[in-house]
């Protein structure tokens, strides 16, 4: 399944400006399919920005300009025939703070199905099954199966974050983008999310932004180091941490800044 040569995300000469401020500078990267790739770098270096380019969520700010090319599975996401809705369906996103919608657990999980099948009728049984499958996959089913109509915003943070992952699954995304998904969680929660990532790996391409270098080391197959909007180094995680090619990378992982 995880053919190492297959590329999930490629960018060429990607530049991005927030109004006059350039947040991404000439980023060219190939992210492989089916593995976990982590994005590390000091605060403000553009990790979140890069991640948000991949499903074009950045565009909701009117003052963002992008140049260059981004391809998901070989398809340029800025082509005219690309539908934003389909793009976002295939590249799901998990945010830094868990952000389940203020509706029931059940409705959170089927939210994606509902918005993508607008008008068409969804059988209750289909929805029920989707909920069970998605929640089982993230390990919430046992805990929540009797509380599906509970308001999702009342769950514990860890459960909320798992739910945020679960609600992507019914849409069968190919790529899951995670922006510091554990930064609001404690040690237990972090471990649970990491285990979940391992379980999802292979079937999904996972790109995870993290501040925590130990996490990048533990949890990712490849690692990208960014600095001030530029991509400095991209290699296999062990290589990047043990034998960094770029002195800036070495400085960062040794904790000289960040």
């Amino acid at each position, binding site marked *: 399944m995880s053919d190492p040569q297959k590329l999930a995300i490629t960018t060429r000469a990607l530049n991005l400006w927030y109004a006059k401020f350039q947040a991404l500078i000439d980023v060219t990267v190939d992210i492989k399919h089916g593995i976990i790739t982590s994005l590390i770098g000091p605060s403000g270096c553009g990790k979140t920005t890069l991640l948000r380019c991949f499903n074009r*969520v950045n565009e909701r700010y009117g003052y963002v300009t992008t140049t260059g090319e981004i391809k998901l599975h070989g398809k340029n996401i800025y082509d005219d025939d690309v539908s934003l809705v*389909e793009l*976002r369906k295939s590249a799901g996103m998990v945010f830094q703070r868990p*952000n389940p919608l203020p*509706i029931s657990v059940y409705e959170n999980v089927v939210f*994606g199905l*509902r*918005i993508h099948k607008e008008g068409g009728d969804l059988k209750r049984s289909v929805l029920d099954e989707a909920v069970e499958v998605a929640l089982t996959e993230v390990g919430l089913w046992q805990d929540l199966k009797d509380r599906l109509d509970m308001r999702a915003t009342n769950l514990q943070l860890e459960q909320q974050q798992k739910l945020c992952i679960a609600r992507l699954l019914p849409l069968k995304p190919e790529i899951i983008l995670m922006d510091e998904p554990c930064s609001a969680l404690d040690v237990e929660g972090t471990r649970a999310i990491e285990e979940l990532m391992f379980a999802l790996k292979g079937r999904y391409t996972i790109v995870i932004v993290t501040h925590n270098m130990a996490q990048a080391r533990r949890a990712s197959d490849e690692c990208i180091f960014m600095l001030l909007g530029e991509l400095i180094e991209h290699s296999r995680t062990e290589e990047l941490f043990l034998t960094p090619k770029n002195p800036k990378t070495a400085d960062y992982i040794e904790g000289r800044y960040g």
Partner: protein
Amino acid sequence: MATELQTELAPERAAPKPAQPERGSAPANKPARAGRGALAIAGEKLIEFVIRLCGISAIIFVFSIFFFVFREAAPLFFQKHEPPAQPEAVVERHADDHSPAAKKFALKEFLFSKEWYPTSQSNVRFGVLALIVGTLSVTALAMIIAVPFGLGAAVFVSEFCGGKIKETLKIVIELLAAIPSVVWGFIGLTVMNPIIQDLFHAPIGLNMLNGAILLALMSVPIMVSIGEDSLKAVPDSFREAGLALGATRWQLVYRVLLPAAKNGLLAAVLLGVGRAVGETMAVLMATGHAVNIPFVTADGSFNPLFIFEPVRTLTATIAAELGEASEGSQHYRVLFLIGVLLFSMTFIVNLTADLIIRGIKKR
């Protein structure tokens, strides 16, 4: 110059901390410093007192208004027979026509009778049912028009436009709130009513629809501004969650934002209702001012064209009749009782809205 100023100011600055005197001649300075300090403290106290009074005055006003209105109405319930200022003859005729019990003011009759004949020579009746129905129905119709319009505008302003357009729209909508109600009434009388009659071939005369449209326009501004506030209060993370799942903007509005902001939007609607219930001038001028229950025809069946019926509201009745009712008469007191009724209605509506808004803030 600078040093002069400094030495001038220094004692004052140091005043709260007399422990560190600035000059050597401390004893000579002390009384002056103490005096100035006392003055400053007194001034501060005074300002504080005035500010506190301003704050409390609102409470005082509300309670004294309520007290006054209630005091004028209260004797209705305690007085046995003739109201003091009524002409002898009328009172006597009363005594002839009715048993003494009927003359006494009856709250039940007041609330549930639709007979409003406050100045009848032979048989005064103070039933405000038709007026209550008038107020409620014109308000309800106004809300049917205003809610989609106002909340739609709130959604548009908060979610679908940005920058210049947003600011301009907000200002224009606020201007709408600044139009005096008599001007609205005038527009209803001279512009809107002819249009309604042309469009719908409605019977000649003013009608409820006319007043309701005016009330709708008058309550839209507050709905838009409160509605926009409550949409703005929805955390951006909900929008991002929806968008990242592939929701279109419209889906985002009705699947995420409306449920998330529903309390605030409800409060917005209630404040609009409060505005409409209390409005006087425009409805007095534009609704026809006929004591009439619009839903029933003369033969007692349901009237499907009730929106073209004239109605009269509680507020308009007070405005139109209080000038003529002699002070202290039963009519006068009943009008004040209507005031109490109105006051209670708007109080409840506003209080509910307020509690809802407060609930949102706490969350």
